């Protein structure tokens, strides 16, 4: 479970969030610069805030600009004890390759395997599907959906259609208002923005 009662500054505005999150996948949506990534950084103690955050440990984080370390795919996985997880997935034939040679989708999957191997109770994932096609995005979302049965998973995304695919509650950033909305309300709100 994650309990958040915090205020933090993004540019010139102050955002206040007071919400409780049970195990599950929560999309974090909102326009550019609305404070989504800053919110994750607050949870991790990487950005100043006032208030209190309670998160079940261990906490894992997959950042927006994730890049594998400059070594092999296998070494990247071994560092997190994630070799076994990857042996059953699409990376199994690429363990000896330099990780920088992976495609964008494969890199994201590598990062995901790494953090999942830590078996976090709270998982923060930031824009990991930003430059992926729908199929690759769906693959990542499916992994997160399955994992969210045992943890609180936050996933920041710019892809509005991600909400339609996963059909889960969302934390919506709209101006100075940040609210946790059930799927139907979040969908209506986002569709109204698009219009």
């Amino acid at each position, binding site marked *: 479970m994650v309990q958040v009662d915090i205020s933090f500054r993004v540019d010139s505005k102050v955002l206040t969030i007071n919400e409780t999150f049970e195990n599950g996948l929560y999309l974090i949506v909102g326009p550019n610069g609305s404070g989504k990534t800053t919110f994750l*950084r607050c949870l*991790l103690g*990487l950005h100043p805030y006032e208030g209190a955050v309670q998160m079940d440990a261990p*906490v*894992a*984080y*997959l*950042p*927006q*600009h*994730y*890049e594998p*370390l*400059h*070594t092999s795919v296998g*070494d*990247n996985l071994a*560092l*997190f004890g994630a070799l076994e997880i990857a042996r059953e997935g699409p990376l199994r034939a690429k363990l000896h390759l*330099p990780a*920088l*040679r992976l495609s964008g989708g494969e890199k994201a999957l590598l*990062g995901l395997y*790494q*953090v999942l191997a*830590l078996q976090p109770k709270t998982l923060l994932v930031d824009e990991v599907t930003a430059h992926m096609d729908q199929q690759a995005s769906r693959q990542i979302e499916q992994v997160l959906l399955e994992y969210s049965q045992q943890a609180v998973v936050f996933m920041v995304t710019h892809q509005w259609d991600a909400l339609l695919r996963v059909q889960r509650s969302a934390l919506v950033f709209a101006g100075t208002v940040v609210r946790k909305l059930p799927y139907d309300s979040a969908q209506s709100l986002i569709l109204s923005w698009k219009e």
Partner: protein
Amino acid sequence: MAYTFLFTIGTTTAAAVSAVLLAALYASSVSQPRLHLSFWRALSGIPPVLVGLLVYMLFSQAGPLGFLRWLFTPKALITAQFLLALPTALALALRERTSLPRDMEDFIRVNLPNKKHQAYLAHLKGTLPSTFFVTWGRILGEVGAATLSGGAIEGYTSTLATDILYKTNLGQFKEALVLGALLLVVSLIPSVFLELSSYGASGH
């Protein structure tokens, strides 16, 4: 000539490997790599003859390490080559360390709080070969430090580069040219290797 060739390869490799490994350990341990980078990058341009002078002063009989009796032995030569290679290796390793984006620094800090050192080492691992070859190239053809520390004693501490100088001074141009060609070939090996590995890494 065969001895000089093998001696050059051996000492250069020993010095470069030691420098690269120490540099990797250092770069993965420091918490503010950017601050260290400026210092070591400045030092990497130090004239080799000054390194030779330093080693000479250290190991001469009146020097603080004179009791070791290393001056004009392969050990003093390797020490000089190591000291010459170290700032370059450190600068390259630190530059690689600072190439990690802020997001990845956070990724390591949050997910691997007790294995940060291993993570940074893993990150540097991919660049060890290129760092090795750059430092290797820096000391391979160097004359000043090798002469002052090793004495360029033929068949004992002379390297390809010091031997070329010696033969030229004696007017033995044919031998000097052969040694020069050999040194050229050896010095090209890193470039060929780096080209091939970067070609492979780009996925072609």
